[in-house]
């Protein structure tokens, strides 16, 4: 029978906290950047111009249909060789994860927008709104409510996907726990603690999101 000893992890607390900080900070960056990419992607696929639609679609599918681990490695190792673009591991990871997340966000945002009845934008147009005005004032406020659960879900996945940046030696929580595990010879305790840390952050967030959803649904 295995003898658990979590006490040993205490000496690595600063390492873990450091890693956790990197993980959370990274998540914030890739969620924000991803949403920006997603917004561009969504409006790109909804564009009146075929060339814009095709470009947006190509980007989205390229990132949506390839594994994120391959993208991370590709951004860091292949871009310098192919395009002469040198990036630090942090930049390469942030960019790859943002684009990967952005491709999923695009589809969520696009889905939300087209789920709004065409009569809504027609009513806006009939009042004399430009397409931009009716998008901002009429369609998006309604669409965002419908997108929130899916966006939240995707952001949770993004949070967990940051664990992959450890392959590029970005010192996130998983990377630091690898260090701790090698050092302490206690991988079971270390990775269990890591799993608990991820859950401890995500579970309260999901509860908050559920509450928010309910509040938003009231005004529908």
């Amino acid at each position, binding site marked *: 029978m295995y003898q658990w000893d979590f006490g040993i992890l205490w000496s690595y607390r600063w390492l873990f906290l450091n890693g956790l900080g990197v993980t959370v900070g990274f998540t914030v960056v890739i969620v924000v950047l991803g949403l920006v990419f997603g917004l561009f992607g969504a409006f790109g696929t909804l564009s009146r111009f075929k060339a814009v639609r095709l470009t947006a679609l190509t980007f989205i599918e390229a990132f949506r249909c390839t594994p994120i681990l391959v993208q991370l490695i590709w951004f860091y190792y292949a871009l310098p060789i192919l395009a002469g673009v040198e990036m630090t591991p942090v930049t390469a990871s942030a960019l790859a994860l943002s684009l990967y997340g952005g491709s999923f966000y695009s589809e969520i945002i696009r889905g939300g927008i087209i789920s709004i009845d065409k009569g*809504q934008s027609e*009513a806006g*147009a*009939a*009042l*004399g*709104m430009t397409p931009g*005005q009716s998008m901002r004032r009429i369609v998006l406020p309604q669409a965002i409510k419908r997108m929130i659960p899916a966006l939240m879900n995707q952001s949770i996945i993004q949070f967990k996907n940051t664990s992959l940046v450890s392959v590029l030696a970005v010192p996130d929580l998983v990377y630091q726990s690898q260090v701790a595990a090698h050092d302490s010879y206690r991988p079971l305790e270390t990775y269990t603690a890591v799993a608990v840390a991820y859950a401890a952050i995500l579970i309260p967030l999901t509860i908050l999101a559920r509450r928010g959803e309910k509040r938003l649904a009231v005004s529908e």
Partner: protein
Amino acid sequence: MSETSKIEIRGLRKSFGSNEVLKNISLDVAKGGVVALIGPSGSGKSTLLRCINLLVAPDGGSVRVGDTRFAFGDGSKLPDVRTLARFRATTGMVFQHFNLFPHMTTLQNVMEGPITVRRMAKADAEKLARAQLAKVGLAEKADQYPATLSGGQKQRVAIARALAMEPDVMLFDEATSALDPELVGEVLAVIQQLASEGMTMVIVTHEIAFAREVADRLIFMRDGVVVEEGPARQVIDHPQETATRAFLSHFHRTGALPPANATS
């Protein structure tokens, strides 16, 4: 007629794919005139109405409302979005399915056009919106969301929303077709009141008795052409064309107007 006409449509054509929905339609509406468009579904009457405020872009012909004229087809470019928006701000439209903005209260719905399109100060817009809501008999529903209103109330809010833009003309696209029968009267009463105030209106409707009372001209359309046109009572009481007669035979033409006293 063209001297005083508010709406003038010439040689309007529109196809959706290979389906020619409007075939060379011309139409005049005098200032303060009320024209009813009737006809079987698929006759093109809704498309014609949507061509008047260019919600649907015609393939050919011309549309003039007030002093603004647009020509379509052969070499003429479609107007840009800003020109279109400015033009539509002067034409009010009421839809079959209301299309109220569900994320806004009744008052906000009516204020939205004045604030976003006319750049009116919030306080002025609110005053205007409250006045329009009072006009359709819904002043006390200002702070409710559309979801809490009946169909008839929703449609009256939609009318108030269109009126808040202080349009030159009002277009009604089967405004009572989605309503329960007992709610039709309150909406027709509002439209009738607008007519009596001299609003220029084009009304697509299946309420033949209402059209007979309120419209001064009636147009019967079928398969994208105007089959018969004339003074509303005359066309309804003494249709000349076989197609008009056949269509009207489905309705109780002489039936009384639904009660117009209901206001809430």
